[in-house]
């Protein structure tokens, strides 16, 4: 016979099981491979989970727990040092120091718990403020509301991963330190559950209250505020634990002296009392039981009382009329100057506080934390304008990583609306990217102005670097938005998981690349970096444009083709492999620099040609050999092979003439001589005895590999989207900037000549001849 009690229990068990299962699935989905183009047999099915996920998940969990424990141990030793213990290890603490630590721990526990409480209501809470609220559905079952709330309590107690990763290791180390031995593991487990229960009770009550009293749009804004408070508290506690030097721990000890005693027996701090002798431990255990029962029952009963008259705010969905005057007061017409996408995005940004917080506040908070923990950083920034400029760009790029990368995520489920408009999606995304670029200048502007006020004398370099910062931010807004759009997985429900984490790293990696442009004092290097990064931005947007039509199509992908991104990737790989090989081959005198150079060049060239061809072939690019220029299509209306050969020689000679004129001019024409002198230190002296090898490289290998990369891929990738002339000039510019500054001008001429010959003949052999003729001529003459 099953009584009502056992039925409640069964319901409770089912509810807990389903909630925890949902949580695990969500975590597992985070580990699963993204990628929309799987061929599913059934429409809309979730792709099967990868086998390694659980192992990875387990390893990560253990790793985080271990790291967190280490962190705590470090914290204690730091605190002991600051509290004034004898420096020798193993010596016991002085009594006043031990008391100071004893008073500090309750403060820390309380601050951390409050941080978790606010984060639970804020960004760690996915259900609050969502359209589909699972509890609403659960209330349609024939289960008592008390059972539902108690099961919610249990779910939050067991399933709050933040608590497990913070409380458990912290308590373990604390009890171990107090001499509990292996019992500390068990004690920490029980006390973690206790703390989680208190948090859960407060959370259930707070959530219910919020739902009951606020409309959904307001809920999201309250969440945003909670996120801010939670992050500030969490960072505050991290600062108190870690703060370099003494400031943080000092502050903690100070707070402990003031608040430690009154806080000691409050719900969040009681577990710390277990450490202080048997008698205190017994009373602490007793108090904990009382708190647990009180909060558990109190929280669920309170929430139960709240929902007696209904589950959600009575004015739930549609709230009726707003008078036009109220609307005006609410600021809807303040944005009257803006139109279309810009107006829409500004409205959404300022109204959706949680979005505002995540895009603009969180990055700023993380950066401030870095400065708090590491005060030396601020000093370094203040010491020179160059540092400040680099920091300003870094801050801006960081903000862009959080904001511009979300151009597509922000459209969310309303993306269909953009497809009904007579404007290409990529143009809309581009406008959004530019808008974010403007936003991202806010924080850098503060840094730059701060640095300018400390300046003693104004130099030209300052103006240049200020310009470089803003130019860089504009370019990186495009890059971040483009990469973000490409890495967005629209089928993922959690907005925070919609962008693949790898994309965020890629954006920051590329931003690091640009910081060289600010760092280097040479104007040529700056120009080279700007050209490279702009090309990178264009490469990203070329792909965005390819993918834009397919965003809402679950199966179709753009037709495979050669993109500028392939060319830039191949060029990068070529230089990296070459550098590594050369370093390896010539290290410890394995090879002389001459053969080493040619071998490294050859290995890099062959591997890049083979690898790129393989990748493109696997992508099933149609007519691949014809596109790269290995052979020509019959219908190409172009000069015959013999004529192409002659033309190649002709163009090679033409480029050679320009090159020679330049080398002559550089020694004889006044401004050019100055330039040469300025650049000369950067021209590497050829090591002795490499001459013959160098000729072989320049006349044979360089034309082979460089033409494949710069004409076959880069120019081909550009030509797809740009008219002939622009593509020729742009590919020549890329070709020029990867060479030493002194040779950029003649190499640019060579780049134009080879691209022209490739465009005319559609055969890679032709620009190879141009290149060989040019290189041979330069070396011979």
């Amino acid at each position, binding site marked *: 016979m099953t009584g009502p009690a056992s039925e409640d229990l069964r319901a409770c068990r089912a509810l807990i099981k389903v909630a925890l299962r949902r949580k695990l699935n969500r975590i597992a989905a985070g580990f699963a491979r993204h990628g929309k183009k799987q061929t599913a047999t059934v429409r809309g099915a979730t792709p099967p989970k990868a086998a390694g996920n659980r192992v990875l998940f387990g390893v990560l969990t253990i790793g985080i727990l271990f790291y967190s424990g280490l962190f705590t141990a470090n914290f204690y030793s730091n605190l002991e040092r600051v509290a004034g213990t004898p420096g020798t290890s193993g010596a016991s603490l002085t009594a006043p120091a031990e008391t100071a630590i004893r008073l500090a721990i309750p403060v820390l526990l309380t601050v951390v718990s409050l941080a978790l409480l606010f984060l639970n209501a804020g960004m760690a809470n996915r259900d609050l403020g969502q359209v589909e609220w699972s509890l609403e559905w659960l209330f349609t079952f024939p289960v008592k509301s008390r059972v539902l709330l108690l099961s919610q309590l249990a779910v939050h107690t067991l399933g709050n991963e933040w608590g497990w990763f913070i409380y458990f290791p912290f308590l373990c180390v604390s009890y171990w330190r107090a001499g509990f031995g292996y019992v500390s593991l068990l004690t920490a487990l029980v006390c973690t559950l206790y703390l989680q229960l208190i948090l859960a009770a407060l959370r259930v009550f707070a959530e219910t209250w919020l739902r009951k009293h606020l409309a959904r749009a307001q809920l999201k804004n309250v969440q945003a505020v909670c996120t801010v408070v939670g992050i500030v508290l969490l960072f505050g506690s991290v600062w108190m634990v870690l703060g370099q030097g003494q400031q943080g721990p000092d502050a903690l000890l100070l707070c402990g002296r003031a608040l430690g005693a009154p806080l000691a027996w409050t719900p969040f701090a009681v577990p710390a009392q277990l450490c202080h002798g048997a008698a205190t431990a017994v009373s602490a255990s007793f108090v904990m039981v009382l708190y647990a029962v009180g909060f558990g029952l109190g929280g669920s009963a309170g929430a139960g009382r709240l929902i007696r008259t209904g589950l959600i705010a009575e004015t739930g969905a549609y709230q009726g009329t707003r008078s036009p005057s109220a609307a005006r007061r609410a600021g809807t017409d303040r944005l009257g100057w803006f139109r279309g996408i810009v107006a829409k995005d500004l409205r959404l940004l300022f109204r959706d506080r949680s979005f505002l917080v995540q895009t603009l506040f969180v990055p700023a908070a993380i950066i401030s934390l870095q400065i708090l923990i590491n005060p030396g950083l601020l000093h370094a920034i203040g010491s020179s304008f160059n540092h400040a400029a680099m920091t300003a760009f870094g801050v801006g790029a960081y903000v862009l990583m959080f904001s511009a990368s979300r151009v597509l995520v922000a459209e969310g489920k309303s993306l269909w609306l953009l497809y009904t408009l007579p404007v*290409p999606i990529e143009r809309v995304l581009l406008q959004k990217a530019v808008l974010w670029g403007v936003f991202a200048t806010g924080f850098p502007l503060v840094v730059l102005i701060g640095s300018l006020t400390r300046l003693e004398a104004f130099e030209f370099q300052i103006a240049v670097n200020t310009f470089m910062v803003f130019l860089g931010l504009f370019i990186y807004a495009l890059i971040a938005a483009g990469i973000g759009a490409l890495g967005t997985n629209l089928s993922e429900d959690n907005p925070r998981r919609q962008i693949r984490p790898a994309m965020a790293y890629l954006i920051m990696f590329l931003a690091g690349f640009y910081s060289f442009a600010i760092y280097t004092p040479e104007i040529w290097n700056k120009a080279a970096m700007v050209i490279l990064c702009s090309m990178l931005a264009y490469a990203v947007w070329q792909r965005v444009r390819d993918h834009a039509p397919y965003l809402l199509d679950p199966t179709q992908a753009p037709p495979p083709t050669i993109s500028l991104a392939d060319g830039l990737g191949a060029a990068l790989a070529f230089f990296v492999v070459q550098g590594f090989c050369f370093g390896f081959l010539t290290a410890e005198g394995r090879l002389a620099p001459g053969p080493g150079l040619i071998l490294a060049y050859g290995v890099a060239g062959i591997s890049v040609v083979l690898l790129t061809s393989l990748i493109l072939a696997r992508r099933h690019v149609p007519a691949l050999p014809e596109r790269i220029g290995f052979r020509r299509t019959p219908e190409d209306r172009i000069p015959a092979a013999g004529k192409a050969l002659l033309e190649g020689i002709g163009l090679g000679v033409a480029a050679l003439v320009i090159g020679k004129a330049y080398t002559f001019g550089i020694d004889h024409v006044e401004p050019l001589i100055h330039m040469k002198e300025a650049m000369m230190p950067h021209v590497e002296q050829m090591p002795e005895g490499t001459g013959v090898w160098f000729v072989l490289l320049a006349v044979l290998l360089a034309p082979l590999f460089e033409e494949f990369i710069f004409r076959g891929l880069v120019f081909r990738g550009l030509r797809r989207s740009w008219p002939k002339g622009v593509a020729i000039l742009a590919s020549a510019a890329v070709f020029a900037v990867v060479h030493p500054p002194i040779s950029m001008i003649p190499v640019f001429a060579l780049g134009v000549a080879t691209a022209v010959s490739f465009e005319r003949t559609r055969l890679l052999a032709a620009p190879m001849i141009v290149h060989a003729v040019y290189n041979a001529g330069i070396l011979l003459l």
Partner: protein
Amino acid sequence: MDEPIVETRGLGKRYGRFDALQGLDLDVRRGEVFAFLGPNGAGKTTTIRMLMGLLQPSSGTARILGLDCFGDRAEVKRAVGYLPDDPIFYDFLRGRELIQFVGEMHGLTRREIRQRSSPLIERFDLKDALEEYAVNYSRGMKKKLGMICALLHDPTLLILDEPTSGLDPLASRLLHELIRERAREGRSVFFSTHLLDQAEKLCDRVGILFKGRKVADGALEQLRADLAEGGSLEVVFFAVTSASVPAEGPDPGRARA
């Protein structure tokens, strides 16, 4: 004048190994109201999403006013208004702001937007709700708002996915009137529906889809005469969508038999 507004030839869509739509040939002419019928999962929404350029056809072509629905998707939208089955709007925009946004994206001035939208707002009785966030609207209100957005640029063709689901009887009637009106003015309407009587009342021609294939297409009268011996559209519908019909269906067991 006889050039079709909508023209699909051999249109098909595959999701992995699942054929959602195969070999669809359709024509919708100027001034015509065309109803697209079929059971759940027959491929109606897939077809509509391809017409809107949201999906790329796996095979065949879809053209609107001679423009390719996928390749020229932005240009096509100048002539098309679209209402999805379940329109989802941005969380924090009010109804009026959404109308303004859509209008601006269509290149209309604020004055034109006001002039064109106010009679529609009046008709759909949405005036009171305009200052509310659209996400808080009921389903029916969202559809009304979506309808206003779709009509704002006075499109030659309206594509409506189950337009009356979620609408109250009054609003449904209003929508019916609107559809007829537009047809009288020489504009075309393409809509999908489950409501056979709605199709019967409104449309000039119907197409019936079943398991991704078109099983009937033509003027209502003719279909009735041919397939139901003068019976109702319901009889026609069940005649062509009963399981025995598609002999060349995707079911391999059936094909072997």
